[in-house]
C-alpha cells in the first residue's frame, strides 16, 4: 500500500498558521470595507458641496442654502422611519400611501373649506395617530401572517391611498387654519420652521437608535434574526413597532406636505418613496439589514437633495431627473452590497 505523507509535522504547523492567518486577513478585509461604507457617503457629500459650488451658478449662496434646508425637511422625516425598517432587512413601500392619507385627513380635521371641523393641533395629532395605526397593521400582517414586508406594505400603501381619496371624495379640502400658513412661512434663525421640526424628529430617531435597547435590538435582528430570537428578544414586537414608527414618520411628513401646499390631497406624497429609499441607501444603510443608521441617512438625504437642487439650478429637464436618481440608487447599492459568491438574489 503506497502511503504518501504530504506534509511532515513541522511544515504542516507552518502551513496551518498561514491558513489561520489567511482567515484573519478575510476578517480584516471585511472590517476595512465597513469603514469605507461608513465614511464614504460623508466624503461624497463634502465633495458634492465643493464641486457644485464651483460648477453650479447660484449654488453657493444663502438663498440656496435655505432652499436646500427647506427641501431636506420632508425626506429627512421620511428617512428616519425608513432607516429602521431597512436596518431590520425589511422595506416599507407604504410611505407614500401613509403620507398622502395623513395629509388628506389632517386637512379635513382642521379649519378647512369642506366641513365645519376646527380641531387645530388636536386634529394634527389625530391624523398622525391614524396614519401610525396603518403602520401597526402592516407590521402585524407582516409578522403574524408571515407575508414579506415588501408585499404587505405595497398592498397597504395602495389601500391607504384609496382611503385617503375616499376621505375627501375626490375633491380635496383647502386649509384655512391660520396656524398652517404661519408654520409654512415661519423661520427661526433664518431657517424654516419645518426644517427645525424635521431636526427634532432626527434627534428623536438618533436617541432611539443609540440609547435604547429597542434600537440595539433592531440592529441585532438585522444582523442575525434567529440568534436574536434565541437570545430572548421579542423579534415580532420589535418589527411591529418599527413599522408603526415608520408610519408615524410618514404621517408627520404628510402633515408637512399639507402645511406646505395648504391642501389635503394624496398626491402631495408623490415621488417621495423613491427619493427616500435613494437617500437612505446612498447614506450607507444596507438593504440586507444590520448596518447603517440615522446619521448616515441624514447624509444621504443631503446628498440626494443637493443633486436634485443642482439639477434644478442647471435647468436639467424635469423628466431626466428621476432617471439620474434611479441610476444613483442602483450604483449605490452596487457599490455597497456584500456579494457572497454563492448568495442567491431574488
Amino acid at each position, binding site marked *: 500500500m503506497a502511503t504518501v*505523507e*504530504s506534509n511532515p509535522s513541522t511544515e504542516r504547523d507552518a502551513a496551518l498558521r498561514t491558513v489561520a492567518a489567511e482567515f484573519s486577513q478575510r476578517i480584516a478585509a471585511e472590517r476595512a470595507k465597513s469603514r469605507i461604507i461608513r465614511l464614504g457617503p460623508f466624503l461624497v457629500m463634502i465633495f458634492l458641496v465643493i464641486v457644485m459650488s464651483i460648477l453650479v451658478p447660484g449654488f453657493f449662496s444663502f438663498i440656496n442654502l435655505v432652499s436646500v434646508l427647506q427641501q431636506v425637511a420632508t425626506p429627512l422625516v421620511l428617512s428616519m422611519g425608513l432607516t429602521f425598517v431597512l436596518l431590520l432587512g425589511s422595506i416599507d413601500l407604504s410611505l407614500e400611501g401613509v403620507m398622502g392619507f395623513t395629509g388628506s385627513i389632517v386637512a379635513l380635521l382642521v379649519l378647512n373649506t369642506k366641513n365645519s371641523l376646527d380641531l387645530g393641533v388636536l386634529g394634527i395629532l389625530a391624523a398622525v395617530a391614524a396614519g401610525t395605526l396603518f403602520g401597526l397593521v402592516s407590521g402585524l400582517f407582516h409578522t403574524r401572517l408571515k407575508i414579506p414586508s415588501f408585499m404587505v406594505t405595497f398592498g397597504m400603501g395602495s389601500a391607504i391611498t384609496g382611503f385617503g381619496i375616499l376621505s375627501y371624495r375626490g375633491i380635496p379640502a383647502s386649509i384655512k387654519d391660520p396656524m398652517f400658513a404661519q408654520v409654512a412661512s415661519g423661520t427661526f434663525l433664518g431657517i424654516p420652521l419645518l426644517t427645525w421640526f424635521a431636526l427634532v424628529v432626527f434627534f428623536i430617531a438618533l436617541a432611539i437608535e443609540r440609547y435604547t435597547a429597542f434600537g440595539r435590538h433592531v440592529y441585532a435582528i438585522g444582523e442575525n434574526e434567529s440568534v436574536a430570537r434565541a437570545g430572548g*428578544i421579542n423579534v415580532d414586537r420589535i418589527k411591529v413597532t418599527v413599522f408603526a414608527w415608520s408610519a408615524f414618520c410618514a404621517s408627520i411628513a404628510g402633515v408637512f406636505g399639507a402645511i406646505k401646499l395648504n391642501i389635503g390631497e394624496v398626491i402631495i406624497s408623490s415621488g417621495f418613496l423613491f427619493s427616500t429609499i435613494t437617500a437612505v441607501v446612498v447614506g450607507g444603510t444596507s438593504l440586507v439589514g444590520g448596518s447603517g443608521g440615522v446619521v448616515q441617512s441624514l447624509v444621504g438625504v443631503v446628498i440626494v437633495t443637493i443633486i436634485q437642487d443642482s439639477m434644478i439650478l442647471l435647468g436639467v429637464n424635469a423628466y431626466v431627473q428621476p432617471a439620474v436618481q434611479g441610476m444613483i440608487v442602483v450604483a449605490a447599492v452596487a457599490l455597497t452590497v456584500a456579494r457572497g459568491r454563492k448568495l442567491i438574489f431574488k
Partner: protein
Amino acid sequence: MEEVLFRARNIGKEYPGTVALSGVDLEVRAGEVVGLVGENGAGKSTLLRIISCVEQPTTGSMEMRGQPFRGRNLLEANQLGVGMVFQEQSLMKNLSVAQNIYLGRERGFRRLGFINWGRMNAAGSRALSAIGLKDISPARKVLELDFATRQMVEIAKVLNIVGDRKGGCLILLDEPTSVLNDAEIRRLFEEIKEITRQGSSIVFVSHRLSEVIEISDRIYVFKDGRQTALVDKANADENLLYEKMVGRSTSGEYFKVNRQTEPADQVILEVRGLGVKGYFRDVSFRVRRGEVLGICGVVGSGKEEVCAVLCGDDRPDTGQFFLDGTECRFSSPADALKAGILSVPKERREEGVIGTLSVAENISLSSLGAVSRRRLISGRALVGRAKDWIRTLNIKTSGPRESVETLSGGNAQKVVFARVISGENKVVILNHPTRGVDVGAKEEIYQLIREMTEKGIGVVLLGDTLEETISVSSRLVVMKDGLVMAEMDAPRLAKPSQLDIVRYMM
C-alpha cells in the same frame, strides 16, 4: 472535584429514519473539563444540543446540581446554569462587546427608557475581567475584533448569562479551536482553566485529539451515536482514542467491493496546488478513468470547499486543475457541467432536485438537448427517457409526472443519480450521496457508483462515514485543517483500516 454538577442518563435521540444517539450517560463534576471525541455523525453535536435544550431527547433524563434538569429552549437552559458556545459564532458583529453580552438583558441598565451605556460598559468590563480578559474594551464593536477575541467574548457572554449562582455552571464549547492559531488556542486554554478554577465546568468538543487530551480531565468517546469509552486523562493517548472511535467494520459485500474497477492509467482530472484563502491550500491529486477518489476529513478540513471549487461553485485563489489535460476555469456550475464535471450536492432538497418539477423533468434537467427537437422540449421523449431510468434504477414513484417533492429521500437521490448518469459527464462529484437514505437504497447507490466507474467515469466521493469512503473508493486523500495529510491506494483486497485514516484526520 468529586461533587457531580451535571448528569445525563440513558439519553437517546431518534429522528425519522435514523437513531442519532442511544443509551448515552454523561457525568460532569464541578470544576472539571470533560472532552467529547468521535467522528462526524458520532453524536457529539446532538448531545450538546440536547444538553443546551436546543433539542429534546427522545429518551433519558438529566440532572443539574442534583435537581432534575429540563428546559424547553436555550433560554431556559441558561436560567438553569447551562450555556453553550456555538461552533459558528453567534455574536452580532454590528454591536459593541458590552451590547452583545447584555443583548436581550438590557433591563438593568435602563432609566426612563434610555440605556446608560457607561454603566453597561462598566458591567461588561467586569464580566470580561471575571475570566481574565482585561484588555478588551467593552465599547468596541465586535466587527473590529479578531476572531479569537470574538471567541473569548462569546465565552464571557455565555458565562455571564448563565451566572455564577451557587455551585458553578456548565459551559459547552463546540469546536472552539477550529479557526484559531496556536497562540490563540493557548489563550483559550488559559481561559478554560480560569473558569474551572472558579468552580464551573466545561464540556469541550474538538476534532483535534491532542487538544482534547491536553485540556480534558476525562474524555468520552462516541461512535455511531453510542458511547464506546470513558478515558481518564492519565490513561489517554491518541492511539487508544482512535481505536475506540472507529470500532469494527461491516462486510465489503454491502459496498459492492468486488465490483470495484481497476482504474485505467489515463488521468481524467488533475488538481495541482489548489487553494482558497482561509479554507485550504496546496491540494493536489489525480483521478483516473474509472476511479473513485475518496476525500476523508472532518467538517472544516476543507474537503467541502475543494469540491465547491471543482464543481464551479467557488473560484480558487491559487493553483489549477485540469480535465482531460485542459485547464478548467469555471465561473459557475453550468461551466463545469459543460466541461463534463457534474456534482451531486449534499443538500439534495435545496441543490440537487427541483421539488416542484416532475421526476421526468428533473432527470433531463442537465441534458435537455437530448430530449429536444428543434430547441423545443419533446414531452414524449422526456417521459420516455424518464420511464427507462425509473425502471433501471428502480425508482419508487407513481410515474414520471409525479413531482419529486413527494418522493422519499432515497428515491429523490436516485433521480439525481439518473440525471448525473444520463448526462455526458467525465467526472462526477458525490457529496454525501447516501445521507438520509435508508439501507436498501444505500446499497443501490453503491451499485450505481460501480456502474459509473465501469463506464469510465471518474468519481470524487465525500462519504457519509469513513467506512463508506474507504470501502467505495479505490484511492484516498486525507485532509486536515485545510491541508492534504496523506494519500493512499485502497485496492479491492487491501483496504486501509479506518484507524490508518483517522490518524491523519484528527
